[in-house]
C-alpha cells in the first residue's frame, strides 16, 4: 500500500468532503444496511478548551509561590437542600458509566481510584454493584429513564442521586447495550432476557417536563429523608434554558455534558451531529445560574472532553464548580494502551483509535462482559493509575491557579482567560487574545 507521502508525490488528492472515513462509512452502510454504532464521544474537531489561554500574573497580579503557598482544591456539592452534601478533596469527579457497559473490575477500579484521592464516582444505566459501592467513598447513584436495577435500598446507600435527562454524546437518546454484553449478571440486574439488544427509553416513564420534575425530585428527597444531594444531568443543547429549568425543579447540582462526552454505544450520526461543544455550554449554564442568583449555590459540574489540568482550570475559571471525566478515566485505567496493539489490529482497529465499546471485545478488559477479557484487568493497579492521573490533573490545575495568583482553584475566573480563536472567544465569552473584543458582546 502506498504511504500518504507517496500518494502526494503522485499527485493523488483526497477529497475533503469525501475523505477516507466518509467513503468507508458509505461502503459499510451499503454492505450492512444498518447504521454504525460505536463508543467514545464526538471525534470531529471542535472549538475546545485548547482554544483558551490563561493570563498569568506579572506586574498587575501577584502569583503564589508554586511549592510553598497553599492552593485549595476542595469543593462542596449539594448544600442547598441536602442534610449531607458531598465534600470532595478535588474538583474532578468520575462521570456515570454503567456496569454492563464496563466490566465489574473496571467499575471497581473507578471506585478505588476516586476514593484514593477523595472524589466521587457515579453508577450508570444498570444499577449499583456491591463492588462499586464497596470501593467508592462517595458514590452518586444515577436515576435514569430505564430504571434498570433501580431500588430504594440502593437509593438509600447512595451519597447523592443524579437524575439523568441526557448525556452529551446523545442528547435526546436513550441507553443502548448490544446483546454481546447482556451477560447473565447484566441481564439479571436489568430484568432483561440474556443476549438481546437492549432498547432503552429516552424519556422517563413517570414524568414529563420541568413541573413534573419538581415533584419527582421532591419524591426522591422524601424517599431518602432529605439527606442526599439531588443532581440533574443534561446533555448540552439548549443549556441556558435547561439549567434554569433544572434549578427551578429543585436541583442541588446541575451536570452539563458537552458533545465530546463519551458513550459506550450510540449511533455515530448521533454522536457527531447532535449537541453542542462543552466550551459553548459552560457560559450558558453559568449565565442561567447567575441570573437566578444561585451561581456557586447550585453547583455546576461540567463534562465532555476534560483531559488535562488545564481543561479543569479553564472549566472552573468559566464558572464550573467541578468537572467530571469518563473517557479520560478509561484511558487512565488502560483503555487504548499500545500494549494491546496487535489485538486492536485483529479487531480492525488500532491503539489510540479503538472505540468499539459496544462489541464487548475490549482487549484491555474494560468495556466488556467477557469473563476472560475482564480477568485481564487488575482493579487495584487500575485504581492506582486512575488515582495518579487524578492527582496530576489536580496539580496541573493548581499550577495554573497559583500562576494566576489564586489561593484556591475555585477562585479562577473568566477574567483570567483569553481566546486564541474568534469562535472560542464567542462561545466562551472571553476576549480574543490581545484585544478586548468578545464577539457578540456590546
Amino acid at each position, binding site marked *: 500500500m502506498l504511504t500518504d507521502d507517496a500518494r502526494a508525490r503522485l499527485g493523488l488528492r483526497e477529497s475533503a468532503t469525501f475523505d477516507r472515513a466518509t467513503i468507508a462509512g458509505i461502503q459499510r452502510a451499503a454492505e*450492512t*444496511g*444498518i447504521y454504525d*454504532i460505536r463508543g467514545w464521544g464526538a471525534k470531529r474537531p471542535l472549538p475546545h478548551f485548547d482554544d483558551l489561554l490563561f493570563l498569568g500574573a506579572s506586574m498587575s497580579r501577584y502569583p503564589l509561590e508554586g511549592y510553598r503557598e497553599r492552593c485549595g482544591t476542595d469543593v462542596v456539592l449539594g448544600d442547598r437542600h441536602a442534610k449531607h452534601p458531598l465534600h470532595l478533596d478535588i474538583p474532578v469527579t468520575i462521570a456515570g458509566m454503567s456496569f454492563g457497559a464496563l466490566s465489574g473490575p473496571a467499575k471497581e477500579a473507578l471506585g478505588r481510584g476516586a476514593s484514593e484521592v477523595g472524589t466521587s464516582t457515579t453508577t450508570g444505566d444498570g444499577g449499583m454493584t456491591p463492588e462499586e459501592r464497596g470501593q467508592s467513598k462517595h458514590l452518586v447513584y444515577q436515576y435514569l429513564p*430505564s*430504571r434498570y436495577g*433501580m*431500588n*430504594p*435500598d440502593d*437509593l438509600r446507600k447512595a451519597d447523592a442521586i443524579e437524575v439523568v435527562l441526557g448525556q452529551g454524546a446523545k442528547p435526546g437518546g436513550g441507553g443502548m447495550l*448490544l*446483546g454481546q454484553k447482556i451477560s447473565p449478571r447484566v441481564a439479571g440486574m*436489568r*430484568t*432483561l*432476557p440474556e443476549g*438481546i*439488544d437492549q*432498547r432503552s*427509553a429516552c424519556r422517563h*416513564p*413517570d*414524568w414529563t417536563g420541568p413541573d*413534573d420534575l419538581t*415533584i*419527582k425530585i*421532591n*419524591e426522591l428527597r*422524601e*424517599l*431518602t*429523608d*432529605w439527606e442526599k444531594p439531588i443532581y440533574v444531568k443534561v446533555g448540552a443543547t439548549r443549556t441556558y434554558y435547561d439549567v434554569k429549568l433544572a434549578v427551578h425543579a429543585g436541583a442541588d447540582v446541575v451536570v452539563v455534558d458537552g458533545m465530546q462526552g463519551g458513550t459506550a454505544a450510540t449511533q455515530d450520526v448521533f454522536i457527531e451531529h447532535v449537541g453542542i461543544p462543552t466550551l459553548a455550554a459552560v457560559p450558558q449554564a453559568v449565565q442561567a445560574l447567575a441570573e437566578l442568583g444561585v451561581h456557586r449555590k447550585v453547583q455546576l459540574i461540567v463534562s465532555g472532553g476534560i483531559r488535562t489540568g488545564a481543561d479543569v482550570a479553564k472549566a472552573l475559571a468559566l464558572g464550573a464548580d467541578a468537572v467530571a471525566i469518563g473517557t479520560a478515566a478509561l484511558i487512565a485505567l488502560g483503555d487504548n494502551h499500545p500494549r494491546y496493539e496487535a489485538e486492536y489490529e485483529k479487531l480492525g482497529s488500532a491503539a489510540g483509535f479503538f472505540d468499539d465499546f459496544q462489541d464487548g471485545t475490549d482487549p484491555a478488559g474494560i468495556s466488556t462482559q467477557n469473563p476472560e477479557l475482564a480477568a485481564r484487568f487488575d482493579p487495584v493497579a487500575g485504581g492506582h493509575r486512575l488515582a495518579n492521573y487524578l492527582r496530576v490533573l489536580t496539580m496541573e490545575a493548581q499550577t495554573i491557579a497559583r500562576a494566576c495568583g489564586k489561593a484556591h482553584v475555585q477562585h479562577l475566573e473568566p477574567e483570567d482567560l483569553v481566546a486564541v480563536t474568534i469562535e472560542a472567544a464567542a462561545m466562551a465569552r472571553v476576549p480574543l487574545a490581545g484585544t478586548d473584543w468578545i464577539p457578540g458582546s456590546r
Partner: protein
Amino acid sequence: MDAVTEVTTFDLRTDSLRDVNAALHAPGLEGEFVIAHPAGAHNVAVGIDAPVKLTVEGHVGYYAAGMNQQAEVTIDGNAGTGVAENMMSGTVWVKGNASQSAGATAHGGLLVIEGNAAARCGISMKGVDIVVGGDVGHMSAFMAQAGRLVIRGDTGDALGDSVYEARIYLRGTAASLGADCVAKPMRPEHHEELGRLLKAAGFEHDDTGDYTRYGSARNLYHFHVDHAGSY
C-alpha cells in the same frame, strides 16, 4: 381474642408531609396507620419499608406509595401520576381511578386499581403484578419487562408496545397493539396464573376464559435492518 391493634393517624391538614413520611420510615415500624385529608398531595407514603397497614383517606397526587416495600397501602380515592412507581413488594390498592404511569418500573408486589387507569399503565414494569378493574389508556405496558398486567376492561392504542417478557391479560378489546406485541394462546398455566391474580384483587368471579393473553413476538430483540419499519 386478638390484641387490639392501635391505629396511628396522621392528618395532612396539620402534619407536614415531610414529618409523616419520616415517621413512616422509622426503623422497626409496625402496626396500622391512617393518613387523613391527603387533599391530592404528592409523594404521600413514599419509601415505606415495613410490614405495616396504611390507609390514605382520600385522593392523592403523584407517586403515592412510590418504591413501596412490604407495606399494604390502601388509597381510598383516586391516585395521580405514577402511583406505586418502582414498587418492590407489598400491596398498593387504589379504590378509585389512577392517572398515567401507574406502577411504572415496579419490580414486585401487587397493584390493584379498582377503577380505570390512564395512559402508560405498567410502563417498563419489571416484575410487579397489576390488576385494573376497568380500562387502561394508550401505551400501557410500554417496554414492560416482567410481571403481569391484568385489564378487566378495554385498552387505548398501542398496548404492549416493545414489550419484553411481561404477560398481559385483557378481557376487553385493545384499540390497537404496539410494535412487537401479539396475542398468544391461553395455556392451562395461564388460566391458573390469571385466576390467582383475579382472586388476589377481589375479582375471583371473572371467567379466565374471557381473557386473551398478549406478549412479545420477540422480533425486535435484535437490531436488524429488516425491522426498520417497526420502530
